[in-house]
């Protein structure tokens, strides 16, 4: 854990505004200032229509103007310096309203969180207030086309040239880079040392000469992920985050914040994308599908629908158990890979059950049945969930090695200078 880490208090510590009075103030301000959600829509759906993030920026600007941006961010960087309890109260009060949830992940919860810990004072003052004003969306440039699970084996180079670095290479799987302003970009500054010891993290302005952003068309028709190409991109050395050649420390912490955000533990998440998600979510999409197919009376289909329901229930039970175990110190933190793997396998099973229930109509459907098209496209993208956020294979490595303590895989690149290692 980094010494620079900001510890956000869970509860109000007495020097802050009382949570309940804050709640009332927020309630009244929200009613005055924020637009209501359209009937039957949630913020997740709204942000899917907000391709360039214009609506999110507009909403964040309102929050900022009202003094409700960055509740748990330090005051010195434009935040409100409040506790998790305040954020929780605000999130509850905000349920009926449009909220700029697009900023939550990765901008607030991953990149701003990392910048708070590793940024220089100059960097923090330059970017955090701008982020909280809605002026900057951020993304992470970590994975590479040649990389896969081996993040530290990346080959994008940053070569020092006076008081700048010149970056060449390519990054991939950044989410929404085309609409974003800044990235944290991990690049290799030294190839003569083992792979983890020659990396540096940079702040990179995205829309500048030498950076090309391409949206990646996915099998399910979306194009949210991007690939970036760097051709002699100039980055001043004032934009190094942390120490030169010590970027792995920054990246590890960034990845921690990513897991924390995905697991619902980040204090920087403001507003709720999908109300009622998690917990007792009904996943009735499969029941609806079976009903539409007239198969609710088929004992075999009923078994499959129940199996899916059971997986969903057990998944939530497992999340709670593992969180409790980590909190109690009975499980090591890498045990977080257990629910991650469970979620991936039960999503796969969910789609396999859909394929069985839908039968032919997942493959061939009449134009009007757009739901069938959705199922087909979801099935094509079945592995999405087992690949995003570290593959299921990596989760199994983590569980066996860091939860069960089994020997690590022999790695051909351990303690060997990077330029002597075979890579893609």
């Amino acid at each position: 854990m980094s010494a620079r880490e900001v510890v956000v208090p869970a509860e109000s510590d007495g020097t802050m505004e009382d949570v309940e009075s804050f709640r009332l103030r927020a309630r009244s301000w929200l009613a005055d200032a924020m637009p209501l959600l359209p009937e039957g829509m949630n913020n997740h759906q709204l942000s899917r229509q907000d391709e360039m993030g214009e609506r999110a920026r507009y909403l964040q600007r309102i929050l900022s103007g009202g003094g409700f941006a960055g509740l748990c961010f330090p005051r010195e960087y434009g935040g409100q310096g409040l506790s998790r309890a305040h954020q929780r109260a605000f999130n509850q009060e905000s349920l009926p309203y449009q909220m700029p949830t697009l900023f939550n992940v990765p901008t607030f919860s991953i990149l701003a969180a990392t910048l708070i810990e590793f940024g220089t004072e100059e960097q923090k003052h330059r970017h955090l207030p701008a982020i909280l004003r809605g002026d900057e969306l951020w993304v992470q440039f970590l994975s590479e086309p040649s990389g896969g699970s081996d993040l530290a084996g990346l080959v994008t180079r940053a070569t020092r040239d006076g008081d700048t670095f010149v970056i060449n290479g390519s990054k991939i799987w950044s989410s929404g880079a085309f609409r974003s302003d800044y990235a944290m970009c991990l690049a290799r500054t030294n190839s003569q040392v083992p792979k983890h010891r020659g990396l540096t993290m940079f702040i990179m302005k995205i829309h500048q000469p030498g950076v090309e952003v391409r949206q990646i068309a996915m099998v399910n028709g979306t194009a949210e992920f991007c690939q970036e190409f760097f051709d002699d991109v100039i980055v001043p050395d004032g934009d190094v985050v942390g120490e030169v050649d010590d970027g792995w420390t920054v990246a590890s912490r960034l990845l921690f914040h990513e897991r924390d955000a995905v697991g619902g533990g980040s204090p920087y998440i403001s507003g709720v994308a999908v109300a009622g998600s998690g917990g007792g979510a009904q996943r009735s999409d499969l029941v609806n599908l079976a009903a539409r197919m007239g198969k609710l009376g088929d004992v075999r289909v009923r078994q499959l629908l129940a199996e899916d329901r059971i997986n969903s229930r057990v998944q939530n039970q497992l999340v709670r158990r593992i969180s409790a175990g980590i909190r109690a110190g009975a499980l090591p933190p890498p045990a977080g890979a257990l629910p991650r793997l469970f979620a991936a396998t039960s999503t796969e099973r969910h789609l396999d059950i859909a394929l069985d229930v839908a039968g032919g109509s997942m493959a061939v459907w009449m134009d009007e049945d757009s739901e069938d098209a959705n199922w087909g496209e979801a099935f094509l993208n079945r592995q999405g969930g087992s690949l995003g956020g570290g593959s299921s294979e990596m989760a199994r490595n983590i569980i066996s090695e860091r939860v069960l303590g089994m020997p690590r895989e022999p790695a051909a690149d351990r303690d060997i200078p990077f330029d002597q290692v075979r890579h893609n």
Partner: protein
Amino acid sequence: MEFELTEDQALLRETTLKFLESTCPITTVRELADNEPRGFDPAWWKQAAELGWTSMLVTEDDGGGSVSGHGLVDLALVAEERGRLVAPGPFAPVNVVAEALSRRGTTGQRRRWLPGLLNGETVAAWCLGAPAAGLDHPGTPVVARRSEGNGLVLDGASQPVEAAAQSELLLVTALGSEGGLVQALVPSDTPGVRLHPARCLDLVRRFAQVTFEGVAVDPEWILDGPGTVASGVEQQLQTTVVLECAELAGALDRVLEMTVAYAFDRYSFGRPLASYQALKHRFADMKMWVEACHATASAAAHAVDADAADAAELTSVAKAYIGERGPVIVQDCVQLHGGIGVTWDHDIHLYLRRVVVNRTQHGTPSDHRERVFRAMDAEVSP
């Protein structure tokens, strides 16, 4: 094991484990299997009763009680440790009957039977003799006709019932001759009651089919009126399933633990088995499943203990999930042990036996999936 126990619960768990390890290690289980027709030592059962094994689902007024006030949660902790040592004894049957008596019995019924059940002198069994609670019930049910004195006359044959032949008291669930269910307390020496020993894959559990031929039941021994009988039977099922699931979770945890240890100890081609990635990944899956089994067993115990609205669904979720995964996990652990895993002398088959029995009693996974579907459908339909 649950991660968030009160101090008292942690102590209960520890006491239970020590008691089992000292009085009934697996060598003793094997001896009971070979030499004890009852499958357990009655004196030992009384010791267990002194530790509270039979009183946690009984109210304090009736002489029961449990350390946390959440009787079923506490009892599930005991069940889990029992699973870890494949312990013997009529654990679920006695507790289910004691709970039913304490919750819904008349004063006379409770006075007559509870003291013996609580101190371990008396054994009782739940004889589910009719199709109920959405479980598959092949064969002919036990039918209860009203007799002249407003008592009952029972006729029919049950499925094999655990501990029936070791019990003085049978809690019989029968089909009323005018429909609905009926529950009655029948001493096993009542004329017309006959026991037919069955065989069980588990080496220390005893089952018997119970047949009834014109068995007369006095009105005072009828448990439940028509208004409570269905929910009573459901309650008995939920309690039984919670205990079965907790025992399964404990057994699976122990099997995985011993197999992980084996993988570290065993060398093949100069490397421990635990260093082979193909095996490591299987262990990762098994660890995930076992943790999920714990999670769902515990959620079911809490829900039933709290009489939660979704208690029926959550017990069936747990039983379906653990029942399905259990044999998969144990068989893969057998495979990882190699040939030694299918020998009589290796303990793993004792666990496999326990797991198969618990999987199939009181509803198979597919029975419980159907129950889950119905709960879900009821929720979705309106």
